[in-house]
C-alpha cells in the first residue's frame, strides 16, 4: 500500500506540480488581489473590500461597453461561424470534386495565429478595400477600420473566416457518421435533398451543434490577439473586447486590483457558459 502510494505520486506530481503552481495558486491568489488597490508599482497593497467591484458596476462605462460589445459580437460570430461552418461541411461531403483542396483551403486560416491574421486583415481592410473604393468610387469600401460600424463587421469577418473551417471539421466528422443506408432508403422513398437534410442530417448532427456553439462562444468571449492586431480596440475604444479591456486596465492604467476584479467577473461569465454546456451535453447523454 505504502509503496503503491509513492508510485502514484511519482506519476502524478510531475504534471500536477506545474499545474498547481501555474493555474491553481494564481487563480486563488487572484480572488484575493481583486479586493485590493494593487497597482503593480508600489510594494504596499491595501485591502479595499469589494470597492473594485462597486466601481466596475457603478462607474466603469468602458468595461460595461466592452462587456456588451463582447456579448453582441460573440452572438453574431457564433451564428455566422456555425451556419457557414455547417454549410461548408455539407459542401465538402457532397458529390463535388476537389473536396480535399476545398477542405484544406477552408481550414487553413484556423492554424495561423491571431496576431498574424489580425495584421493580414488590417492590410486587406485598409489597403485592398481602399484600392477597391478608389477604383470603383464605392464609398462602401472606404475607411473600414476608422468607422465604428464597419470595424465591428471587420472583426466579425476575420473571426468567421478563421473559425468557420474549424467548425466545418467538427461537422464533417458528424455527417460522415450518418450511415449511408439511411440516406439511401430515404432517397428510394422519394425524399428530396432538403427533406433529407431536415429530417435526417440535421437531427443526427445535433450533438455536434452543442459542441460547435459552445466552443465558438467561449473562443469569441476570450478573443484577444485578433482584437489587438486588427483594431486595438479602436476607433475610440468602440471595438474593445473584454480581454483587451482587462489587459489595458492592468498595464496601460496600472490598476491591477481593478483589472483582477474584472477578470473575476470574466471568469464567472465564462464558467457559466461552460457549465451550461456541461448541463446540455449531460442531458443529451441521458436522452441517448
Amino acid at each position, binding site marked *: 500500500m505504502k509503496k503503491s502510494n509513492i508510485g502514484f505520486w511519482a506519476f502524478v506530481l510531475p504534471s500536477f506540480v506545474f499545474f498547481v503552481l501555474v493555474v491553481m495558486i494564481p487563480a486563488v491568489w487572484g480572488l484575493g488581489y481583486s479586493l485590493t488597490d494593487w497597482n503593480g508599482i508600489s510594494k504596499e497593497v491595501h485591502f479595499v473590500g469589494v470597492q473594485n467591484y462597486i466601481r466596475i458596476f457603478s462607474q466603469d462605462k468602458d468595461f460595461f461597453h466592452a462587456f456588451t460589445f463582447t456579448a453582441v459580437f460573440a452572438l453574431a460570430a457564433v451564428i455566422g461561424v456555425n451556419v457557414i461552418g455547417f454549410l461548408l461541411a455539407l*459542401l465538402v461531403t457532397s458529390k463535388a470534386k476537389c473536396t480535399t483542396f476545398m477542405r484544406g483551403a477552408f481550414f487553413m486560416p484556423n492554424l495561423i495565429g*491571431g496576431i498574424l491574421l489580425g495584421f493580414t486583415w488590417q492590410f486587406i481592410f485598409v489597403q485592398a478595400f481602399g484600392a477597391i473604393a478608389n477604383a470603383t468610387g464605392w464609398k462602401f469600401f472606404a475607411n473600414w477600420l476608422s468607422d465604428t460600424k464597419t470595424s465591428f463587421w471587420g472583426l466579425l469577418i476575420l473571426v468567421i473566416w478563421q473559425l468557420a473551417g*474549424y467548425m466545418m471539421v467538427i461537422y464533417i466528422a458528424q455527417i460522415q457518421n450518418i450511415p449511408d443506408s439511411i440516406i439511401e432508403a430515404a432517397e428510394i422513398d422519394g425524399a428530396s435533398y432538403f427533406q433529407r437534410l431536415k429530417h435526417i442530417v440535421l437531427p443526427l448532427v445535433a450533438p455536434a451543434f452543442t459542441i460547435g456553439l459552445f466552443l465558438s462562444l467561449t473562443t469569441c468571449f476570450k478573443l484577444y490577439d485578433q482584437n489587438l*492586431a486588427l483594431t486595438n480596440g479602436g476607433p475610440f475604444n468602440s471595438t474593445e473586447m473584454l480581454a483587451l479591456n482587462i489587459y489595458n486596465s492592468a498595464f496601460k492604467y496600472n490598476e491591477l486590483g481593478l483589472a*483582477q476584479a474584472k477578470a473575476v467577473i470574466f471568469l464567472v461569465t465564462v464558467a457559466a457558459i461552460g457549465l451550461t454546456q456541461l448541463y446540455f451535453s449531460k442531458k443529451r447523454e441521458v436522452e441517448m
Partner: protein
Amino acid sequence: MKKKNVISTAILTIIGIVLSVLFLSPILILLSNSFKSLKNIYLNVLALPNADTFTLKNYPEAFVKLDFIRSLLNSLGITVASTVLLLLFCSMAAWVLVRHKTKLSNTIFMIYAAATLIPFQCVMLPLVRLMDTLHMMNRWGLVLMYLGFGSSLSVILFHGFIKSVPVELEEAARIDGCNMFQTFFLIVLPLLKPIMVTVAILNSMWIWNDFLLPQLMINKPGWQTLPLKTFLFFGQFSKKWDLATAGLVMCMLPIIIFYLVSQKHIVKGVAEGAIKG
C-alpha cells in the same frame, strides 16, 4: 437522372472552388504585395506584380528586421520542449489516475477538468508576479507555464483514451516482474501512440501561435518568439507595408508547411480535441 447528377456535381464543384479561392484570397493578396515595392503597393494593391514591379528586396530586409532565424528557433525550442514534456508528464499522470480507482485520483482529475473553465486573464496578473518573484521571466519560465496551462486538456484526452486500453496486458507484465515504470514505459506508452499524436498537435498549435504569454513574460530582444516579434515589428513598421507583407508571409510559412506535410493528422487531432475536450 444521370445528367442531372453531372450538372449538380459541376455546380457544387464550381461553388466550392470559388469559395476556396475567396477563403485564400487575403493570404494571396498579401503574398502578391510582398513582391512589390511600397510605391507600387500604394499605386494598386490588387494588381499582380509584373516584370516591371516584381522585386525580392522586401524579404532580406524583413528577414533581418525580424531577426527571423533567432525568433524561429525560440518559437521552435519553446514549442518542442513544452510539447514533449506535456506528453510525458500528462500521459504518466492520466495513467495512474485511471488505474488507481480511489477518491483521491477522482478528485485530482476533477480539478484538472474544472480548470478548463478558468480563462487566462483571471490568473495572468498574480502569475506574472509569482514568476517575477521566482526569477523565471524568461524562456524557461515560459515552458513551465505552458506545462501548467496545457496539462488540463492533455490529461483529459489521455484519461479518456487510457480508459479504453485493456488492463490485462499491464497485469501480465506485472506478474512477469515489471515494476511501475517498466510497465508504463515498455507496455503502456507504445499503446498511446494515436492519442499522443492528437495531444502533440493540439498543444504545439496553440503554443506556437500563443502571443499573450510571451508578451507578458519576455522582455529581452534575443528571447522573443515569432508572434511577439511580429507584433513588435509591426508596431515599428506599420506604414511600411512592403516590409510588413513580406514579414507576415515569412511568419506564416512554417505553419503552412507543417500543415501541408501533416494535414491528415492535424484535422483528425483538431476534431478529436474539440469533441472529447
